[in-house]
C-alpha cells in the first residue's frame, strides 16, 4: 500500500512541471518563480501538519477575479496573436488557485486537465529544446501519475461503496494485494513509458507531412539572427544569444588551420534594393544564370564556375560545420570557387551574388558540413571565371531617398577625402572609377567609425518621427544603432554618391578557439555590412561598424556557463536537426532509404541462403530429391525437439501437481509418468469449470464436484483413489490398470461433456 502514498507527490510534481514548462515557453522567469513559490506553499498548506484547504467560496471568488482580470487585459492591451499566451497565463493562475482546493477525485481530475491544457498552450508558443525536454518529462511523469491515480481512485470508490447505513455495517475494506507489489508496478510503469516513447518516435516519423516544417528550418532561422532582409522600422533588438550556430575552420594553402588577421565575413544574403516606403532592404532576384550542381558523396570539391580558376594567389579553405542552425543557405566567404559537402547535395550557385543555396529535397536534415575553396584576394581572372557577364557594372546608380543627398555630400566633405579621382577624372578615365569607389567607401566608413556613432543592440531609445527616413534619423538625430543601421547608412550614402554598392547579411567569425583551431560563430555574431564594386567583376567588403564594438559586445556577453554550453548545445543541436527540421522531404528520404536498405538486406539474406544451399547440394550431391529429404529431416528434427520440450514441460507440471519436489529426480520422473492421468483429469475439470483450488485436497475437491455433478464426481473419485495408491501407496500400474485408468478418464470426459 506504500505505492499509493506516492500518488500525491507525483501528482504535485506533475503540476509543477506543467507550470515550469509553460513559464519556459514564455521565457518569463518572474512567472516561473512566483507561480512556483506559491505552488510550493500550497503543498505546505494542504499537506502540512494542519492540512487546510481553501473554502470553495473563496476559491470561486479568486477564479472570478482572475477571469475578469484576464478579460480586461485581453480586451484593452493584447493582440489576437497573443491569445494563446493570455490563455496560458490564465490557466496557470487558475491551476495555482486549484492547488489550494480539497484533495478529492473531482478536483484532482480538474488539476490534471488544467496541467495538460497548459502544456498544450506552451506547445503552441514555442518548440525550443528546453521546453521540449520539460514536455517529455511531463509525459513520462504523467504516465506514472496516471497509473497511480487509477489505483487511488479505485481504492476510494471501493471504500465509498462500503459506507452503508447503520443497520448494515459491511466489513471494512481490506485491500487484497499480491506479493512484490512495488517492483512489479515500477517495472510495468517503466515499460509503458519506454514503449510509449518508442512508439511515439515511430509515429512521429510516419506522421504525414505536407510541406516544410514551420517549427523547423524557418523557426531556427528566425532565432539565428540571420535574416535575408533588413527592416529598419522593426526596431528590434539584435539577438545577443550565445548559442553556437556553426564552426569555421580556416585553413591556409598548406591545409593548416590558422587564425585570420581580420574577422572572417560569411555571406548569407545580398540585398541590393531599398524600398523607401517600407524602409526595407531586399534582394533583387535575378536567377537567369544560376548554376545547379550535385556535389559528390566523398567530400570532393566541385568547381562553381566553368573553366579552370586562377589559383596563383594561394587557396584558402573554409570548413563550416553546422551545430544548431538548420538552413539551406551556405554561408560563404567572398569568393568561393569550389565547394565540397559531407553528403551529396543539390547546390545552386548564383554567379551574380556569389551565393550558394541547397535546393535538394532528398536528405534528412540541413545540418551539414561543407567546405569552400576561396582566394581572400581573388584575381580579376578568377572573378571573371566565376561570374562571367552575369552582373555587369551599372552606371545609373541612385538611391530612392533624395533627402539623403545633401547629407551624403556633407559627410563626404567631412570625411577628408583627398587624392581621390573626382567625377570628372572618372569621366575622363573610366579605369579610375574603381579606385574612386574604393577610396570613397573606405573614407566614409572610416568617418562613421570615428566615434560619432555609438554601436548598440538596444534600440528602445531610437526615435523615428512620422514620415522620417530611418537612415536619416540614424545619421542626424540618434547616432546610435546596430550593424544594420550602420550598413544601411553607408550603403545609402554610397549610392547617393553614385557608387555601386549593396548590403550583405550573414555572420562574422570573431571568436577563435585556439584549443580546437576553429572559429565559433554564435547567434550574436549575425552581422550586416556593405560591398562596394571595385572592379569589373570585383566587390570589396566595407564594414562601417567599429570592430572594437563588436568585440566588446561579444566579450561582454561571455559567461561562466559558456564552458558547459557544449553539453546543452549538443542536445539542442540534435533536437533542432533531428526533430524540428524533420519535414516531408526528410520523411520521403528516410522512407526511400529504408525501403532500399530493407530490400537490399532481404535480397542479401536470400542470396546467402541460396549460396549455402547450393554448396550443400554440391557437397553431398543431393539433387532435387535429396533437397526434399533434407528439408523433411530438418522439419522432423525441429518437430522432435519441440515435442521433447513439450513433454518435459508437461512432466514438470505433473511433478508440481503431485508434490514430487523432495524426491530423487529419477523417482520423481517415474512417479510423474505414472500419475500423469491425474494431471489430465485436473485439466479436463478446469476446462469444464471445476478448477481445483489450491487449499483443497483431491478428496475435498471430489466432494465439491459431487455436489454439482454426481457422475463427474464419481468418475473423478475413482481416479483420485488410483492417484493416491500410485503416489503414496507405491502401486506400479500394470497394463490392465492403465487401461482402466484410460476408461475412467473417458468416463469423466463424457460426464463433463454431458454437463455442457
Amino acid at each position, binding site marked *: *500500500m506504500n505505492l499509493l502514498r506516492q500518488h500525491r507527490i507525483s501528482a504535485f510534481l506533475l503540476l509543477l512541471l506543467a507550470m515550469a514548462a509553460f513559464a519556459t515557453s514564455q521565457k518569463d522567469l518572474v512567472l516561473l518563480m512566483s507561480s512556483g513559490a506559491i505552488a510550493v506553499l500550497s503543498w505546505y498548506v494542504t499537506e502540512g501538519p494542519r492540512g487546510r484547504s481553501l473554502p470553495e467560496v473563496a476559491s470561486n471568488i479568486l477564479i472570478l477575479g482572475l477571469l475578469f482580470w484576464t478579460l480586461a487585459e485581453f480586451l484593452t492591451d493584447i493582440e489576437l496573436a497573443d491569445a494563446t499566451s493570455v490563455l496560458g497565463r490564465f490557466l496557470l493562475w487558475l491551476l495555482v488557485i486549484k492547488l489550494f482546493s480539497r484533495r478529492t477525485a473531482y478536483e484532482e481530475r480538474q488539476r490534471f486537465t488544467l496541467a495538460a491544457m497548459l502544456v*498544450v498552450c506552451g*506547445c*503552441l508558443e514555442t*518548440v525550443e529544446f528546453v521546453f521540449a525536454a520539460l514536455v517529455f518529462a511531463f509525459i513520462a511523469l504523467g*504516465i506514472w501519475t*496516471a*497509473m497511480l491515480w*487509477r*489505483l487511488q*481512485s*479505485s*481504492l476510494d*470508490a*471501493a471504500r465509498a*461503496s*462500503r459506507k*452503508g447505513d*447503520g443497520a*448494515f*455495517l*459491511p*466489513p471494512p*475494506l*481490506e*485491500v*487484497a*494485494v*499480491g*506479493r512484490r*507489489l512495488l517492483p*512489479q*508496478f515500477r517495472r*510495468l*510503469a517503466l515499460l*509503458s513509458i519506454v*514503449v*510509449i*516513447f518508442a*512508439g*511515439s*518516435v*515511430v*509515429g*512521429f516519423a510516419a*506522421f504525414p507531412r*505536407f*510541406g516544410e*516544417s*514551420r*517549427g*523547423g528550418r524557418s523557426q531556427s532561422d528566425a532565432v539565428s539572427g540571420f535574416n535575408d532582409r533588413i527592416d529598419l522600422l522593426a526596431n528590434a533588438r539584435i539577438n545577443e544569444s550565445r548559442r553556437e550556430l556553426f564552426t569555421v575552420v580556416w585553413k591556409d594553402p598548406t591545409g593548416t588551420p590558422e587564425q585570420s588577421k581580420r574577422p572572417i565575413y560569411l555571406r548569407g544574403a545580398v540585398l541590393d534594393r531599398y524600398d523607401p516606403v517600407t524602409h526595407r532592404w531586399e534582394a533583387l532576384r535575378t536567377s537567369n544564370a544560376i548554376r545547379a550542381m550535385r556535389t559528390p558523396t566523398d567530400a570532393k570539391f566541385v568547381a562553381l564556375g566553368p573553366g579552370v580558376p586562377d589559383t596563383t594567389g594561394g587557396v584558402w579553405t573554409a570548413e563550416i560545420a553546422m551545430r544548431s542552425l538548420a538552413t539551406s543557405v551556405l554561408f560563404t566567404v567572398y569568393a568561393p570557387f569550389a565547394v565540397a559537402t559531407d553528403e551529396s547535395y543539390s547546390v545552386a550557385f548564383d554567379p551574380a551574388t556569389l551565393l550558394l543555396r541547397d535546393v535538394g529535397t532528398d536528405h534528412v536534415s540541413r545540418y551539414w558540413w561543407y567546405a569552400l575553396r576561396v582566394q581572400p584576394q581573388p584575381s580579376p581572372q578568377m572573378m571573371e571565371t566565376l561570374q562571367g557577364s552575369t552582373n555587369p557594372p551599372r552606371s545609373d546608380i541612385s538611391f530612392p531617398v533624395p533627402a539623403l543627398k545633401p547629407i551624403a555630400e556633407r559627410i563626404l566633405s567631412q570625411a577628408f577625402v583627398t587624392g581621390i579621382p573626382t567625377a570628372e577624372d572618372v569621366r575622363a578615365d573610366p579605369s579610375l572609377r574603381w579606385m574612386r569607389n574604393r577610396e570613397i567607401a573606405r573614407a566614409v566608413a572610416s568617418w562613421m567609425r570615428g566615434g560619432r556613432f555609438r554601436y548598440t543592440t538596444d534600440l528602445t531609445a531610437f526615435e523615428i518621427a512620422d514620415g522620417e527616413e530611418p537612415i536619416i534619423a540614424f545619421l542626424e538625430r540618434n547616432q546610435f544603432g546596430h550593424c544594420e543601421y550602420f550598413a544601411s547608412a553607408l550603403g545609402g550614402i554610397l549610392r547617393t554618391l553614385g557608387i555601386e554598392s549593396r548590403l550583405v547579411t550573414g555572420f562574422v567569425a570573431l571568436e577563435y578557439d585556439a584549443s580546437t583551431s576553429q572559429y565559433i560563430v554564435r547567434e550574436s555574431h549575425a552581422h550586416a555590412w556593405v560591398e562596394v564594386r571595385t572592379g569589373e567583376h570585383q566587390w570589396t567588403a566595407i564594414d562601417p561598424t567599429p570592430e572594437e564594438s563588436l568585440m566588446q559586445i561579444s566579450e561582454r556577453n561571455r559567461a561562466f556557463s559558456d564552458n558547459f554550453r557544449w553539453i546543452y548545445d549538443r542536445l539542442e543541436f540534435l533536437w533542432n536537426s533531428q*526533430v*524540428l527540421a524533420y*519535414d516531408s522531404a526528410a520523411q520521403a528520404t528516410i522512407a526511400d532509404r529504408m525501403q532500399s536498405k530493407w530490400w537490399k538486406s532481404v535480397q542479401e539474406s536470400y542470396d546467402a541462403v541460396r549460396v549455402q544451399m547450393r554448396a550443400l547440394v554440391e557437397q553431398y550431391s543431393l539433387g532435387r530429391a535429396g533437397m526434399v529429404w533434407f528439408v523433411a529431416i530438418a522439419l522432423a528434427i525441429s518437430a522432435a525437439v519441440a515435442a521433447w520440450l513439450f513433454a518435459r514441460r508437461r512432466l514438470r507440471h505433473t511433478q508440481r501437481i503431485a508434490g514430487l519436489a523432495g524426491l530423487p529426480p529419477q523417482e520423481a520422473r517415474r512417479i510423474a509418468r505414472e500419475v500423469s492421468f491425474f494431471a489430465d483429469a485436473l485439466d479436463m475439470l478446469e*476446462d469444464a*469449470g471445476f*478448477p481445483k*483450488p*489450491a487449499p483443497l485436497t483431491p478428496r475435498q475437491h471430489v466432494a465439491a464436484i459431487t455436489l454439482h455433478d454426481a457422475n463427474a464426481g464419481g468418475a473423478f473419485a475413482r481416479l483420485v483413489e488410483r492417484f493416491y495408491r500410485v503416489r503414496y501407496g507405491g502401486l506400479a500400474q500394470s497394463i490392465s490398470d492403465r487401461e482402466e485408468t484410460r476408461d475412467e478418464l473417458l468416463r469423466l470426459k463424457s460426464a463433463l461433456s454431458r454437463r455442457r
Partner: protein
Amino acid sequence: MQATRRRTNFGTAGLLYCLTVVVVALASVNRPNNLLVWIFSAMLIALLVSGVVSGVMLLRLRAHRIEPRRARVGEVLVVRYEIRNLSRFVPAFDLHIEERKLPPSIVNAGEAWMLHCGPGDTVHAEGVFRASKRGLFRFPTFEVWSSFPFGLLRKRLIFERASEVLVEPEIIPLQPTLLSRLARGGLMGGVRASVEVGGGEDFFGVREYRAGDSIRSIAWKRLAGTDQLATIERSRAVPPRVRIVLDLRRATSDLRVAEGVDPRALEEDAITLAASLMALADRQGDEFGLTILGLDVAAIPLRRGHFHRAKVLAALAALDLDQPRDASATLRESAERATVLFVHPDRADTSISPAVGWNFTAAQLSSLRIPVARGGET
C-alpha cells in the same frame, strides 16, 4: 472457471481522451509543429498501450467464486472470490469483481476490489451484499474488469459460474422474558425432570453406597433405620422445550387482512416471528422444534444446538409460499412434553390442535420485539 467472454468498453474518460487526440491531431496538421506531432503520437500510442496492457493483464486470469455461506435478511453477506494469475511475467492491477444479473432482493453493499495480483499469485477479495428477502437465490454470473493503467478502456472477463445461497429469515430480538413467562407452571410442558440420572434436584432413586460418593448424597434416614449406607440419586435436569407450529394452512389469498396490508407480507412476518421465537429459545438454552402446517414439510424434532438451529432456519428459509396449501392439516397429539407456540399469519385458530398452546399472530411481531431506542440501540 475459464472466462467465456471478453468485452472491451470505452469509458467517459476514454471518449474524452479520444476527442482530445483528434483535436491535437488536427492542430498538428493545421499548424505544422513537430512538437505537437510528437505529442499526438505519444497520446495515440498511450491509448494503444492502455488497451494492450489491460488485455494482457486479464489474459491469463482465472476467477472462482468461493461458495457463499448462508445469509440472513438484515445481515451482510460476504462473498469471497479467488483470483489466480496464471501468467509467469505479467502482473494484474486494479481488478474489480462484480456480480451480474443479481436477483432483485439482493443488492451490492460493497465492491470487491483487488489492488494487485502478481504473476503466479492467488489472491482473495471480498464482496459485500445485502438480502432483503429470504429464500434460495442464485448468483449466475460474475465479471472481473479493469481499466488499468490509464482508465481509458475497460476490459472485462465474464465468468459463467452459478452459485446458490440460502437466505434465512430475519431474526428480530424478542423480549427476553417472553418464553419463560409462557413456560412457567409446568402444565404447558416446560421444565420437567428427565428419566436419566444426572446432577439435578429431583429425587430419582436410592442405591448402595460406593466409595467416593459425596457425603451430602447419603440417605441418612435410611442409615438410621437399616444401618446400611445408601446414596440418593437425583435426576438430570432438562431444559424447557418449545415447539413452534407455523400455521400456513390458509392460502395467501384467503387470509383476512386489513385494507392496504399485503397478505404475503403477513405470512413473511409470521415466518420471521417463528424464526425469532426459535432464536430466543436457542439463546435461552431451551430445546426447540418446528412444525409447518399446510405445507409438505416434515416436522423437526425437539433438539438444541447450533446445527439444529441451522436446520430449523434452513427449513424456514426454504418455505415456498406459492405451493398449494393443505387446509385440513392439524397438529397431532404427541407424547412429547413441550410448550407449543402457534404462529398464525392473520388470526388465531384454536381448531388447529387439541393441544394447549399459545397463539401468536404476525401482527404481534412489533409488540413482542425489544423496543428500539431513539438512537437505534435496543
